[in-house]
C-alpha cells in the first residue's frame, strides 16, 4: 500500500494522467521539503508558545532575572525638519546608538520631554529625552535566552488593540515575513497532507475519524461555545 512517505512510481495505475502523477510526486516532495526547512522555526514557535502559556515555569523566568543598566548620553535636539515623533525618536536612537522597534507607551504633553521605549528580542530600552538639558536617559534591561525566545514568538511591532504602534524597524518587518512564511508553509503542509491522505483508500476511514475528531474539538471552541452558551 502506498503511503505519504513512500515514493510512487512504476506501481501507479497506467490510467492516472501524467499531470496528476507529477502533481502527486511534487506534492509529497514539497510536503517534506517544507517540513525540513521549517523544522527549526516550528520548534521555536511551538516551544515558545508553550513557554508563554506557562508563565509559572520558573526555569524559563526571564524578566525577574533581567540585568539593568542605566546611562545618560548627550544629544542634540532634532532639527525643525523632523516634526513627527517617529522621526525625532529615530534621530535620538541614531545619536544614542540604539537599534530596535519603537514602542509608544505614553502621550507626549511637554514638547521638551520625550519618553518612549525601544524593544528587540532580549533587550528593552526605556528612553527619556530632555531637550532642554540636551540629555537622554536610558534604562536598558537585558533578559536571558528564554526571554529572547518568548519575545521572538510575539515580535511583530504591532498590537491588535493599539493602533498607535506600527512597524518601524526593518528587521521587525523581515521577522514578520519569516512568520508569514512559516504560517503559509504550515497551511501548505496541512493541505498537501490532506491530499496525500485522500489518495490512500485504505487509510480514509481512520484518517476521517482522526480529522473529524480534530475538527469537532476545534469547532467546539471556534463556534460551538457561542452556540451552547
Amino acid at each position, binding site marked *: 500500500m502506498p503511503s505519504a*512517505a513512500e515514493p510512487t512510481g512504476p506501481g501507479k495505475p497506467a490510467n492516472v494522467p501524467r499531470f496528476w502523477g507529477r502533481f502527486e510526486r511534487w506534492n509529497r516532495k514539497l510536503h517534506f521539503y517544507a517540513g525540513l526547512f521549517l523544522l527549526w522555526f516550528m520548534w521555536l514557535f511551538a516551544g515558545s508558545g508553550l513557554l508563554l*502559556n506557562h508563565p509559572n515555569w520558573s526555569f524559563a523566568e526571564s524578566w525577574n532575572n533581567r540585568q539593568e543598566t542605566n546611562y545618560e548620553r548627550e544629544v542634540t535636539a532634532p532639527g525643525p525638519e523632523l516634526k513627527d515623533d517617529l522621526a525625532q525618536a529615530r534621530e535620538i536612537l541614531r545619536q544614542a546608538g540604539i537599534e530596535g522597534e519603537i514602542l509608544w507607551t505614553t502621550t507626549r504633553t511637554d514638547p521638551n520631554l520625550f519618553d518612549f521605549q525601544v524593544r528587540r528580542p532580549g533587550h528593552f530600552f526605556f528612553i527619556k529625552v530632555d531637550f532642554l538639558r540636551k540629555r537622554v536617559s536610558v534604562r536598558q534591561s537585558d533578559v536571558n535566552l528564554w526571554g529572547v525566545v518568548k519575545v521572538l514568538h510575539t515580535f511583530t511591532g504591532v498590537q*491588535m488593540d493599539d493602533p498607535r504602534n506600527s512597524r518601524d524597524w526593518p528587521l521587525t518587518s523581515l521577522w514578520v515575513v519569516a512568520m508569514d512564511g512559516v504560517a503559509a508553509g504550515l497551511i501548505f503542509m496541512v493541505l498537501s497532507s490532506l491530499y496525500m491522505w485522500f489518495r490512500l483508500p485504505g*487509510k480514509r476511514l481512520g484518517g476521517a475519524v482522526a*480529522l473529524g475528531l480534530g475538527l469537532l474539538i476545534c469547532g467546539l*471552541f471556534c*463556534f460551538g461555545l457561542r452556540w451552547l*452558551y
Partner: protein
Amino acid sequence: MRAGFFRLIRDLHLYIGLFISPFVILFSVTVFFLAYSWLPRIGSETSNTRIVSAFLLPENLASLSGRALIDALKPGLERAGVQGEVGFVRHLIKEEKLIIPVIIPGRVTTVSVSITNREATIVARETGLAEAMVTLHQSPGPHGPAIRMNWVYMMVWRWMADATVYLILFISLSGVYLWYALRAERSVGFFLLFAGALSLFGLAYALSR
C-alpha cells in the same frame, strides 16, 4: 521488526497529523491577523444589552481580589446567564461599580454591576470567527496566570494548545525519521535542514545581538 516500526511511525504521523491539522490551521491563519493587526469580519458583529436586577454579589466583596474575587462572582454571573472566562475585574470605588469582562471565543460580555443597588447592565458583543480564533491563539497567554483559566472550557483549551505543541514535536520528529528512510532525498533534505537552521539562527542573531 524494523519495517513494522516504520509502518507504525508512518501511520501515527498520518493520523496524528490529521487530528492536529485544524489546530495548526487555526494557529497559522491567526498569525496573519496578529502580524498585521487586521481582523476580517466573518459574520456580522452584533451587540445586545440587558439589565438584571438583584445581582448576587459576595458579602465580603471589599476584601476579595484576584482569583478569589472571580470565584466569588461566578455564582452571580451564572444566575444572570453569563458564562465564560472572566478577565481582570475592575472595582471603581468612587462610582461604587464593578466592571466584569467575560469572554467566550467570539463573544465579549461586559457586566457592569452597581454595588449600591445590585443592578447589572450586561452588554454582550458578538465579535465573530476571526476574533474567536485570535482569542484562542492567545489563550491562555503569559498575562495574569493567577486569574486565567477560570472557565472549564478554557482550561480544556489550554490542554489542547499544549497537546498541539507536543504533537507537533512528535509529527516533526517522525517526519524527520520518515524522510531519512528515503535515501534518494537525503542530500536535499540535509541542505534544507541546514538552510532552515541558518535562516532562523541568522535572523534571531540579527534581531537580538
